[in-house]
């Protein structure tokens, strides 16, 4: 027990916002989750502790479109640590209108298995 670490998370399941406490051993295995009101909190804390993932949504430059940027997302949640690198890399991408919703902009971004996909049509300006 003295070697175990405590990590804290704010549950995002509902507005109650339970303060979750994860106790893990020296191998970072979850020993116990405390502080939850419903089972959602327990599952969320374990996921956040072991493998936190996020959907990434950002925009990409587009030339000749109705607007200057086209919104994109990752087709799946990616490891949290990759989010900023993905957004930084997308700054060097420039598309040409028209773009269609669902178009794949980057395949298998940084080997995460997720694609970068346009989330709207971008018709040519005019």
């Amino acid at each position: 027990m003295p070697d175990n670490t405590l990590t804290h998370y704010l549950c995002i399941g509902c507005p109650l916002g339970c303060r979750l406490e994860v106790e893990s051993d020296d191998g970072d295995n979850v020993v116990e989750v405390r502080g939850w009101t419903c089972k959602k909190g327990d599952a969320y804390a374990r996921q956040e502790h072991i493998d936190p993932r996020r959907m990434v949504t950002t925009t990409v430059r587009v030339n000749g479109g109705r607007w200057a940027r086209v919104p994109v997302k990752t087709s799946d949640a990616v490891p949290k640590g990759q989010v900023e690198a993905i957004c930084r890399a997308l700054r060097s991408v420039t598309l040409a209108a028209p773009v269609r919703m669902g178009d794949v902009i980057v395949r298998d971004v940084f080997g995460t298995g997720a694609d970068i996909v346009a989330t709207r049509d971008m018709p040519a300006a005019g």
Partner: protein
Amino acid sequence: MITGKLSHLEQHYDVVVVGGGPAGMAAAVGARDAGAEKILIVDREKEAGGILWQCIHPGFGLHHFKEELTGPEYAQRYLASVMDKGVDVVTGAFVFDADRDRRIQLTSGQHGIRVIDSKALVLGMGARERTRGAIRIPGTRPAGVLTAGLAQKFVNMMGFLPGKRVVILGSGDIGLIMARRLTLEGVEVVGVFEIMPHANGLNRNIVQCLHDFDIPLHLSTTVAHIHGRDRVEKVTVAPVDAALRPIMEKSWDIDCDTLLLSIGLLPENELSRQLGISLDPVTSGPVVSSRMETSMPGVFACGNVVHIHDLVDFVSQESYLAGTNAGEFVTGKRRPADNVRLVPGENVRYCVPHTISTDREHTVYMRVRQPLEKCLIRLGDVYQKKLLYVFPAEMVNLTIRPRFLEQFHGDALRVDVVPRDT
């Protein structure tokens, strides 16, 4: 591909919808499904879809489409069904007048000034963001003070960054979302300041927009002064006392070039006022019946113009109902009139709709004043339901079924949200 300029704008329509955001789109679809033939949506932007286009983050559509979508995906899917149903959509057009005969006047670069008749009119103008003037922040008036939603449009659609070092006032969801957005675009977000002792946004946004990027959230703290001549140079922030007054002895200065405001939305009702329909001083929106009809027969209203929603899915639901009733008004089908008034009671700020009828099921939306855990929602003495929690930032939905009212013969029902032990 979503495209489209309406080349031929007609003069007579069954239903005219003012505003092509989520409310207007759903109302148009509802009107069509109820049998209205000629329907027009008027929108001032270059495309219908409203604020959804700039809300590029996920979290939309779980109720309506049964899957999680980004704002643009929700807009495009909805707009596709509007177009499929043969609704006319005129964009770049602004409705500047409406009268009690449901005649509107619009102005557009393409069509000039036009007068258009409708048999039923639906108001779906949405809301505006509250600005610096609404909370009277002292200081100079430099460039670099803007609302979070405007900054969102700059960044996500127009491709401009509002500044290099940003302070955000207000912890509403738009402010939190922008803290992450700007960080991911390489802007430094110094912190988010909230005058209330609790955050206004979803916990999901607190975690994923602030904690993920180590952006501090300062509760019970506000911006007390703005400095800078041409451009914002710094702001003074201060903790507040119980009466929400800044304690200047404890204030400190923050160097920044931009202040974003995320301090709430106000229903946009200039046109409603011109029409002379009754407005509710609490919601700042029209008083509506269970048919979403305003005090003026044949004029309906829905979405954020009626009350501020926190989920677009509920806007779609409420507005589809408004559109259905507008369509039925046109085709001559009338339902029994409302016979029960809803009266906001303990810990209830408002209820929408304002009245209901006893012959059918209703969904009533309401907002509470104070957060409560383990509480009870009470509808007169005819019905009560346990709730695990209520929060002012989260709308409460209540389904009222005809059987609740079988033994009820009054004309007003009080709605209370109270702790369970009273």
